[in-house]
């Protein structure tokens, strides 16, 4: 009996080993991976940029102290192999991996990390140059903000002392913006550093032909193992249709932002796979309360009843989205599923308008963005559909647009009466949606709620997750009642790859490291 047991155990072990070795064996080294995207990077110093196209590249070149587990927003070790936080939540200690080097051969140690944070956070730092350091101020509230000091305890131990506890602190450190750069390279290039990025990530920077392509090559000594790919090229092909043609003809291996109309043909094509990025965004219609009559909550509620979200998703997202009732996407913790959305009901909407004193409707400007975004793949059509829904309750929206840069400028300038826009979360924390988009000190829709502000600040300072969940659920109820926006959809952005591209795991935060991707030629 004993003998049989032993034998079967041995068999199981052998099987597991065989399976494991087979899967290892199947992965192939080598090859060049070409990714086609809608636009060029703005810059390659991640702390200076906010656009997804820059982050796609810097994600490969840099490491962060901690990072997100592939396909999730769960925090896992990065440059730090482990960490601990003090009782009061104010002191974070990180133990770094030993022997990790930047691409220029300098060591990644506590001093280097301290130097990076001081460069970002201290406005009088000699290398606080080359941009606005936007995301630092965003996430740590000003310069130096929440981070009081960064200490290099020893070669491989770094300690952060915070002004007050910050709930999302660890998730913030995992954001691609806080990639650790080689101090020597920053000193060498100064203002021009954004064109010569040096980090410790899985791929080294080779060249950047602006408007055309960024070329990267494998970092042989990467701490998480050499990447399977030899080279990665990011090509800019602005037109969605043209990019799809290139993919079909084989000159690129993968692309994002496909026209929803083409999704069906991808599904029918044996050589192509449609993969879906986990939904982690929100597309919304905002009503600016500095303008009459949007200061009246009844008008805003009427609009919420007038828009048929299900129909919009069926028509313009190829079904790859779900209707939004909260600013938070359902995949994030603290999502309040008990909230009941305002149903599509034209009669109710008309009643509310009449009650607000506008039985005969009114006229206003409605802005839509000129470029497809993950949350609004076809903004012009969606805007026209919304305009039509609103015309059915007797209000007239004049559709207007600007080029993308101007559009964002005017949005930040509070010049739009109503507009559509959206957001993709970048650190997996609800704070990154609710505080950034709707707090009265941050939002661009004239929404003021002291009650909400207090909740959001309290949630920021708390490190107790249960408490934070309760606070954010309450925040969503307030937002639901005040209707600063009509949330429209949480999309599941489609990516298209050739079937020969293996193990591409899209992350909700919209960028991912490519060192585990391999090509099956």
């Amino acid at each position: 009996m004993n003998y049989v047991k032993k034998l079967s155990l041995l068999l199981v072990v052998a099987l597991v080993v065989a399976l494991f070795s087979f899967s290892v064996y199947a992965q192939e080294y080598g090859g060049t991976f070409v990714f086609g995207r809608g636009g060029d990077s703005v810059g390659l110093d991640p702390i200076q940029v906010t656009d997804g196209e820059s982050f796609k590249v810097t994600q490969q070149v840099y490491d962060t102290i901690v990072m997100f587990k592939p396909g999730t927003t769960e925090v896992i070790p990065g440059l730090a192999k482990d960490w601990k936080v003090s009782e009061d939540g104010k002191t974070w200690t990180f133990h770094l991996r030993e022997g990790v080097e930047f691409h220029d051969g300098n060591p990644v140690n506590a001093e280097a990390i301290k130097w990076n944070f001081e460069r970002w956070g201290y406005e009088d730092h000699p290398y606080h140059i080359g941009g606005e350091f936007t995301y630092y101020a965003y996430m740590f509230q000003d310069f130096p903000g929440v981070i009081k000091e960064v200490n290099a305890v020893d070669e491989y131990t770094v300690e952060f002392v915070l002004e007050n506890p910050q709930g999302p602190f660890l998730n913030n450190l995992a954001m691609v913006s806080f990639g650790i750069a080689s101090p020597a390279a920053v000193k060498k290039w100064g203002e021009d550093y954004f064109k010569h990025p040096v980090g410790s990530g899985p791929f080294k920077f080779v060249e950047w032909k602006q408007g055309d392509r960024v070329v990267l090559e494998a970092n042989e000594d990467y701490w998480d193992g050499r990447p399977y790919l030899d080279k990665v090229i990011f090509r800019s092909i602005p037109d969605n249709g043209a990019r799809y043609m290139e993919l079909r003809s084989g000159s690129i291996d993968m692309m994002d932002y496909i026209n929803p109309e083409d999704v069906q043909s991808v599904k029918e094509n044996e050589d192509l796979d449609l993969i879906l990025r986990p939904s982690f965004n929100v597309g919304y219609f905002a009503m600016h309360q500095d303008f009459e009559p949007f200061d009246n909550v009844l008008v805003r509620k009427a609009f919420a009843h007038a828009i048929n979200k299900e129909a919009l998703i069926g028509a313009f997202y190829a079904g790859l989205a779900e209707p939004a009732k909260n600013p938070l996407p359902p995949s994030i913790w603290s999502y309040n599923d008990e909230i009941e959305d305002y149903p599509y009901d034209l009669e109710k909407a008309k009643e509310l308008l009449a009650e607000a004193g506008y039985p005969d409707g009114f006229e206003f400007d409605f802005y839509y963005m000129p470029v497809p975004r993950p949350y609004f793949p076809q903004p012009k059509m969606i805007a026209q559909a919304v305009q039509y829904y609103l015309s059915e309750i007797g209000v007239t929206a004049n559709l207007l647009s600007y080029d993308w840069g101007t559009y964002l400028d005017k949005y930040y300038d509070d010049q739009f009466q109503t507009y559509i826009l959206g957001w993709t979360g970048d650190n997996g924390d609800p704070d990154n949606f609710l505080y950034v988009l709707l707090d009265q000190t941050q939002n661009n829709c004239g929404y003021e709620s002291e009650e909400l502000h207090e909740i959001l600040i309290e949630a920021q300072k708390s490190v107790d997750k249960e408490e934070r969940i309760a606070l954010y659920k309450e925040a969503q109820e307030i937002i639901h009642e005040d209707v600063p926006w009509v949330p429209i959809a949480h999309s599941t952005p489609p990516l298209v790859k050739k079937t020969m591209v293996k193990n591409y795991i899209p992350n909700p935060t919209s960028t991912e490291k490519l060192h585990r991707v391999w090509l099956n030629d």
Partner: protein
Amino acid sequence: MTNEEIKRRPSNPWYEAGRRLLKNRIGLLGIVFIGILLFIAIFAPLIAPYDPLAQNIMGRYKAPSSEHLLGTDEMGRDILSRIIYGSRISLQVGLFSISIALITGVFLGLLAGYYGGFWDMLIMRIMDIMLAFPAILLAIAIVAILGPQLRNAMLAIGIINIPRFARVVRSSAISIKESEYILAAKMMGASDVRIIFFHLLPNAMAPLIVQTTLSIATAILEAAALSFLGLGAQPPTPEWGAMLTDARSSLQQAPWVATFPGLAIIFGVLGFNLLGDGLRDALDPKMKNV
């Protein structure tokens, strides 16, 4: 013979030109095209089977059928109805923008041609500068400053067409102003205004009419181009050029969405071009015997 009788004589040049135009097949075809276009534009609400703005996002990209003769577009709107209403916009653009160009251009041309000297120099150099820019580029610049709206697009098209009219009028004014009957009018004490409007302008009429007709054709095309670039009519206005631009992304999957507005533009532009050609032949005194 009294004056009345002289006017009624069949040898009146306008009457002659009209007769020749109707005999000219090309010109006649142009008149027919424009006639159809006018008819459609005027009676659009009666002809169009659907509301051009009514959407049905459940029925997008429907192929032509008995229900929707030309199919439906990306918002599920009836393309035929949109084209029918679009004729109003195209005609409006043509007439409005060319009126701006005509009035301003004629005024400047007469001023430059009649007075000559400094005014001629100043006005015509400005016109030269405007002509030095590619027309559509100048229009884009003007719209970019004023903001993308149909009204501004019409204004821009009007402005870029001014030099053509100014040139035509100026050259005929110069050729006539030294003639003896103008001298006679001056001797009789006619004012400059009288001479300009009663003697110079009527003599420039023939080339002006041709120029106007042809310019309406280009204006329609330019408006479509501006709308195609997103600088003219804004959604959901059923403007032909704007319809084309929205159809671009579905060219492979629903070609009818782009085809029919394209044909409508061709039809409208061709009508005015043919009429312009016919008028040029009819009004040219050298072609009298054709």
